Each structure stands twice: as C-alpha cells, then as structure tokens.
C-alpha cells in the first residue's frame, strides 16, 4: 500500500474533492428519486383529479404491483350495516331437487374467532369481508351506471348485469365454495351442483333512532342480494384434488 505521504498533496486533495463531488451527486439523485416516487404516489392516492386522470396508465404501471397501497380506512364512509355472506348448494337427481340450507360463512368464522384473543381465523374473516365489499361495491357502481343510461336495450342490460361474474371477489367466492363443497358429503351423490350465494345487508337502527334496542332484529332493515355462482361439477373437484376424501 502506498503511504499517503508519498502521494503529492494536490492529488489527494483532488481525490477527496472527487469523492465529495460523487457523494453530493449521489445524494441529490437519491433525493430526486424519492421526490419523484412520492409525487407519483400522491397522484395515485389523491381523489380523482384532472392530472391523475391524464397520467392514469403511467401512474398505475409504476405503482402496481410493487408499491400498491390504499389508505381508504373506513373511508369515504364506513360500512354502516352488518353484512353477512351465505351460500347454498342445490342439486338435482331424477328431477328431485336437493338443497342445503343457507350456510352463513361470516357468522361461522366470526363465532370461532370471538373465542380466542389472537386467532388465525382473523385472516378468513378479513377475506370474507373483502369478498363481500368487492361484490357490493362493483354491484353499486354497475346499478348506478345502468340507472343513468336509460337508453340501454334489455339485452345490453342483461349483458351488463352478467359482468359481476368477472368480479375478483365473485370468482374468489367460487373457489371458496368449491372447498366448502368438497368437505360436504352432499356433493358425493351428484355429478354437478349449482351454487347460489346471497349477501344479507342488515341495517341496524340509524343514528337518529340510536335509542332503539340494538339487539332486537325487529329494529333492523334487512335486504337480500342474491346471485348465482354457476354450476360446480363434482368431477372437476376430484381432478383438482379437492374431493371430500381429502
């Protein structure tokens, strides 16, 4: 190694200056990168405005999937009713209909979760809420869209109404119901089974009626939102390795 004393002082000064310059450039570049990163995130997270509308594609392709985030926590409005998710299996054999009762998916998980302080079922509860929210939100948007376009023909409306089948929550629920079905002995006797689901929206007394008994279901306004998940073939379950023997 060459001793620092043997290097002419103007050369070590130059090296030090070069290193200092390099660090300054690096620091400025990194600050710039962070500034750009959070500027793009600001546009992504901000409410719809003309700027994020113009750069919608560019912003989306930068943020997703590496920096995707959503901070609409209880916003713009919190869920203001108890929503449950129920499924029902219907099968036909020689024109005789067999069906299960409505199975309340959320209630089963909620009851189990309430038993322990920290439960792995918290994740499943989050999943079912996410599925419900995804379906309800899309359906509200779709209904609003159809209502504001009165010139649509009945066929067009039917096509639009079928769009719910593309919803991520709806397709996830189909996967979930296949797992539930594979665990029921009911499935074994039939080749194919139709699956229905419904979201039960139970509105507890509104704020103006807050003194009414919260626990009395007579004070609730209950609406049902029913859709079908299509037909699940039992053979498909076996092919996937989901048959009830598992």
């Amino acid at each position: 190694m060459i001793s620092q004393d043997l290097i002419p002082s103007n050369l070590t000064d130059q090296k030090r200056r070069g290193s200092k310059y390099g660090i300054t450039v690096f620091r400025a570049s990194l600050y710039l990168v962070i500034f750009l990163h959070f500027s793009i995130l600001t546009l992504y997270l901000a409410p719809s405005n003309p700027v994020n509308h113009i750069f919608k594609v560019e912003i989306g392709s930068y943020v997703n999937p590496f920096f995707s985030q959503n901070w609409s926590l209880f916003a713009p409005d919190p869920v203001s009713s108890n929503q449950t998710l129920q499924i029902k299996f219907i099968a036909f054999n020689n024109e005789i209909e067999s069906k299960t009762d409505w199975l309340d998916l959320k209630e089963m998980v909620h009851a189990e979760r309430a038993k322990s302080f920290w439960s792995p079922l918290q994740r499943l509860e989050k999943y079912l809420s996410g599925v419900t929210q995804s379906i309800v939100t899309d359906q509200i948007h779709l209904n609003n869209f159809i209502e504001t376009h009165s010139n649509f023909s009945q066929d067009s409306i039917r096509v639009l109404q079928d769009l719910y089948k593309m919803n991520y929550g709806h397709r996830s629920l189909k996967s979930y119901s296949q797992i539930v079905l594979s665990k029921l002995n009911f499935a074994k006797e039939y080749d194919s089974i139709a699956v229905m689901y419904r979201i039960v929206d139970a509105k507890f007394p509104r704020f103006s009626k807050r003194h009414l008994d919260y626990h009395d279901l007579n004070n609730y306004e209950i609406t049902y939102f029913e859709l079908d998940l299509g037909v699940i073939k039992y053979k498909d379950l076996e092919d996937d390795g989901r048959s009830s023997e598992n």
Partner: protein
Amino acid sequence: MTAEVQKTNQFIGLSIIRFIFGLIILKNIIFYLPTSDYYFGKNGIVPWEDFLLICGTINMSFMTIFFQNDLMLKIYLLLTVVLAFNFCLGIGSTINGVALTIFLFFLKLRNGLILDGSDNVISVVLPFLIFTNCYRFFNVQLAYDKLEQVLRSKDWMTVVDRVFVLAIKIQVIFVYFFTAIAKSGGVLWQNGTAVYYTMRVKEFNATSLNVPLTQNVYFVVFTTYTTQLIEIAFAFLVWFKKTKFIILTITALLHVGIFIFMRIDNFSWVMITTYAVFINDDEFLSIHKGVKLRISSFLLWKQKILNIIIK
C-alpha cells in the same frame, strides 16, 4: 469516511421497528401455516389465473412454482419463517432483509384478500427499512457480519440511510394524510356520525360498551371529528420538536382506543411501532433516563412508605 457525510441519528428507532415488524411477520406466517394451501395454494380461495397473469407481467413466472403444490408451499413459508426470525434478531442484516421483502411480496400477490392494513403498512415501509442501518441495535449478527460492516462503512450507504429514513417518515405520514383526505368526502364523516356506525358494525363491535357509548350524541360527534383532525394534524405536527411528542401520544391513544373498542390489533401496533422513526437516538436515551429516574424515585417512595407502615 469523509466528515461531510452526516450520519442519521435514528438507529434505535429503526432497530425497534425492525424488531417488532419481524415479530409481527413471524406471528403472521406461523398463523398461515396450518391452512396455507387454502390461502395460497393453486386450488386455494383466490383465483389462480390472476396470480399467473401478474407474475408473467413482471417476468417472475418462475416464482409460481412455490405455490403449485403443498410441499413447495410449506417450504416457501418455512423459509419465510426463518427469514422473519433472522430479521427480528438482525441476523444476515441487509441480505436477509431483501430476501424477506421479496418472499412477502409474492405472498401479497398470491392472496391480497386476507391481508389487512398492518400488512399493507409493513409492505410499503419494508423496502426502505431494509436498506437503512436498522440492524445496529437489538441484534445477533452472525451471518454476513463482515460484509455488513464493509457495506455500512461506505459513504453512499450513509446517504441511503438518511434519505430512506426520510422516505419512511413520508410513507407513515401518507397513511394518515390520505385516510383523512378520503374521509373528508364521506357523508357520515361530514355529519359527525361515522363513529356510531364503525363502533356498532358487528365486525368491530368488540365490547359491551360500544352500544351504550354510541348512544351518547356528544361522544359520537366529538370522536368522529377528532379522529379526522388528528389524522390530518399528524402530517404537519410530527415534523416539529415542540409538537412531535404531543401528536405521537394522541395518535397512539387513538390506536389504543381503536384496539380496545374495535379490536383492530395488528394495525394499531404496527402504526404505533412506526412512530419510532420520528424519535432520534438522543431523545430515546433521554426518555430511557427519565423512565429509569422515575422508577427509582417511585421505588424509593415505596420503600419509605413501607418503612413508615412497619414502624
């Protein structure tokens, strides 16, 4: 090291975040294990095709192999457990941190529907945190120790430290700021009744006090508006030394309230943990000194009282 490169003064805070994040990730992955094939497997509760598509889009299709059968999935999750354990203890430092972030990223891609707000906070803070010197305290550096020392002695790494600490602060502020912005557009947040509904909805109705409390009009309106005020104020007051501790304490109390009455556990603890990035090492040391002093004076008083009682 050149004298011009100023070091960050947040090593204790960063190390606390690393340690607690590591514990929470460890807990989450262990909870996933028994039902992992349902959560993340090919025949799981979310469509497989979407995962294939997104992995293909980012040229990472080879990662799907870990999710195609139960054995591979278990191996993947056990590796994540090891990485989270190492991260908690600072073993493997930056290299381990990078690997953990990648492993968690693919779990998020496979099933985002089971994730909650805390997972989202961790996933956006982690990419910055792993490159800072968050491994300095509360650690058992066994692997790559020399490599880490060489890395941390570089001037440019000191710059990364400082800039990424700022990035973490901005990211935490974004959580509150954009939540407040989104709430400002909601009818229930505007008319002051939002807390009535959030506390009564079955999913968050965690105590027998929720219903009687929300019958009180003053409680509902006060907490609804105060929540929004705190969230928006956080973004501004946390930068100034005089107001920093006040807003951090108030926001922490808000999270404790949310935890008690709505049982949103992970999110509350993760958010409170991130506050450590706003407190520098000197402040941590003086807090430690103050707490120690109070405890010893309390013990002294206790002894004096005991002596009086005995006499």
